[in-house]
């Protein structure tokens, strides 16, 4: 039992250790601050700034969009529907299922939809697809947080004559740190996912300037460079993976710290 636990905990450190030991030597300031030059993928000059920014744009855009969509849904199933009503349960089941859908399905669907609408692979396409992917994460996380709010807080607001809409503002305030955690989790997932963006966001050596421009992402940069036969390019993939890992770990650690804060302050 202890052995199994050691293996599981160890696998985390093994993964991070492997990435650090291979990626760190290849990491340089140039990699972080420049976009790829013409022969970058043959070992030429340049960096992966385009991918870093592309990923951040996509993750930020989709987190924002998903937040705008998810909050009303969570409010609706918690404040407007009665507790354990069939519709609430069905919605929750629906989101459980959507949560389990692999990103490749979202990617394939998103791309099909884009072709149908006559859109090119672009930053916008990536944002929309990743939004679809992370809405279930947000809805589920926020739903769980709101369900921990004591019923008496709802009642306190209701008994002052507040409507459900007015009460939901109070509830949102109460769970604000939980919502931030949900957003961070979703952001982390959005920034790390490849399968959903590989067709929909396209690929580009430039930093996207508008929503219609194609955009490269960090995970895609890792993936593409790794398949290069040039050794130097491969080691860049490791460095890019290291950058991605650092970003994602920072995000998940802050999400954890935040949610701990939340449970400390709860009444």
């Amino acid at each position, binding site marked *: 039992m202890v052995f199994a636990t050691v293996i599981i905990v160890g696998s985390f450190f093994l993964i991070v250790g492997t*990435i650090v030991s291979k990626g760190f030597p290849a990491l340089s300031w140039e990699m972080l601050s420049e976009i790829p030059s013409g022969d970058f993928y043959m070992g030429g000059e340049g960096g992966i700034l385009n991918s870093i920014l592309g990923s951040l744009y996509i993750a930020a855009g989709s987190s924002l969009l998903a937040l705008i969509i998810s909050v009303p849904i969570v409010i609706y199933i918690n404040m*407007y529907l009665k507790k354990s009503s069939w519709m609430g349960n069905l919605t929750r089941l629906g989101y459980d299922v*959507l949560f389990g859908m692999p990103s490749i*399905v979202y*990617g394939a669907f998103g791309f099909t939809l884009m072709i149908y609408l006559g859109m090119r692979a672009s930053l916008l396409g990536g944002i929309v697809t990743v939004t679809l992917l992370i809405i279930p994460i947000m809805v589920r996380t926020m739903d769980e947080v709101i369900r921990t709010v004591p019923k008496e807080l709802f009642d306190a607001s209701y008994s002052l004559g507040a409507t459900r809409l007015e009460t939901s503002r109070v509830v949102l305030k109460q769970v604000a740190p939980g919502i931030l955690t949900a957003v961070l989790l979703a952001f982390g997932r959005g920034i790390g996912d490849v399968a959903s963006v590989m067709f929909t966001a396209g690929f580009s050596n430039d930093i996207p300037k508008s929503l219609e421009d194609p955009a490269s992402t960090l995970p895609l940069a*890792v993936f593409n460079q790794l398949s290069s036969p040039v050794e130097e390019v491969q080691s860049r993939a*490791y460095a890019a993976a290291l950058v991605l890992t650092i970003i994602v770990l920072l995000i998940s*650690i802050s999400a954890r710290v935040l949610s701990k804060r939340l449970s400390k302050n709860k009444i």
Partner: protein
Amino acid sequence: MNIRLIKDKLAGSTMLILTLASVLLAILVGWGLYYKSLPLLEENSVWDLLSSSVWKPSKGEFGFFAFIMGTLWVTGIAIVIALPLCLLCAIFISEYAHPRLRKIVVPVVDLLSGIPPVVFGVWGVLFVVPLIEDYIAPVFVDYPMGYSVLAGGIVLGVMIFPLIISLLLEVFSAVPKEMRDASLSMGATQWQTVKFVLLRKSKPGIIVSVVLAVSRAFGETIAVLMVCGSVIMVPGSVFDPGYPLPALIANNYGEMLSAPEYESALLFAAFLLFVIIFLFNAISRIVLGRIKRKIE
């Protein structure tokens, strides 16, 4: 009527529409994929598609058997690796571990779940593949290859650790403490209590967890694709390369726009994933919900 009440109602209807629309989206995804795979389904029977292993897109022959077997091999290996380890680890965390130790293990498992697939893939390429090629495979076969379904299975197994552990912990926490106390007070050892009370009581929950883990493993794309070789063949042993369904989509979709039949075939693969995962998830979530409700 009061303007506040109108606002309340209006907001309610808007949110209702949004909620309905978002759930409809799930159906739309399934329907869209189905619609796109119709051209393929009109020409071939589902059974032929699933059982044939001839894959010649240029000739219009699409047999998914090799890909399905690739998926099954990788998933099977992943579960065989992950389930015993996770079961032991979850028992340790929930029954034996000192709370302070638990506070270290659980966050690490959480962090593991946050690592992006592509990083798992890189780790697989850097660590698992050489390990198999240089140390494990040579013992068993003559021409060792690192890129294999075993590599895919190992990487995937590690990837689903966090999911299985968190599900199992949830299932275990649903077994009331009094039940354990009753067993312990009758003189049973801790391990006997685990075996006869905890595991027996949570059997349905454990099965559900496995089903959910399987469905997660089915759909995982990039990490597996990076290490399992992507050779179209029905794997004969764990050291053979394989080509799972999601990898098929990821490698070829986007480049086949000129061939509508090819596109249709790839979207059929996506539809297949959708249906399997939809069913697995829906059923197991319903069962899991039942289990949870029983305790409340």
